[in-house]
């Protein structure tokens, strides 16, 4: 079960090698995304996740906000 985390956890996990994944669409990604994030839009997750993400490293997903 994916664990819910806050921004402090994100910084700690990213420093330890976790991959930060932006699951928004292309327009939102182009406008702004967390520095160093990887773009894997939700609609293409099955296709792009194996190409862009390392399954042996932790993964952190995020979208626009908490709503």
């Amino acid at each position, binding site marked *: *079960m*994916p*664990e*819910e*985390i*806050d*921004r402090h*956890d*994100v*910084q700690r*996990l990213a420093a330890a090698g*976790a991959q*930060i*994944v*932006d*699951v*928004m669409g292309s327009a939102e*990604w*182009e*406008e*702004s*995304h*967390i*520095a*160093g*994030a990887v773009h*894997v839009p*939700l609609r293409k*997750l*099955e296709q792009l*996740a*194996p190409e862009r*993400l390392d*399954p*042996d*490293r*932790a*993964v*952190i*997903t*995020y*979208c*626009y*906000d*908490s709503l």
Partner: protein
Amino acid sequence: MSPRAAWRLESLGFGEVYDYVGSKMDWIGDGLPFEGTFADRPRLSTLADAGVPTFGLGDTVRDVRDRLGGWDLGLVLAGPQPVVLGLVRAEALDADDHRRVEEVMEDGPSTYRPHVSAEEMSPQLQDKPAPWVIVTTLSGHLVGVARPEAIHAAARSDGS
């Protein structure tokens, strides 16, 4: 959206998956680094002067007078990871030297987040003029103080 993605990644075999609940707006609002076309635009984080004088609740009016320099305001910070509690206007210097900052400060001033662009902020200042814009992270940590004239100028150059 991201909880769904997290669940889906787990079902695809990713063993250690987390969901950042606050997501992008929480990150950017706290002044943390981001990239993209929006990142290159002038924003409050780059327009804010971090040199604004700061004071503790226990400081006195005399302390403010000694350290305010040419500023027309000082900010009052408190807590182990200091957050902005209030502001002291230069006018407060008329008070007795020994009065504590706590007694003369204005509580809970309006603050704005560092990611707000000059283009967004400028019309707000035209509708509701203010002598300064206090910029803090979502957590309340001080980034600095931006001046309306700098915000308007940056908005004009950004739009041109």
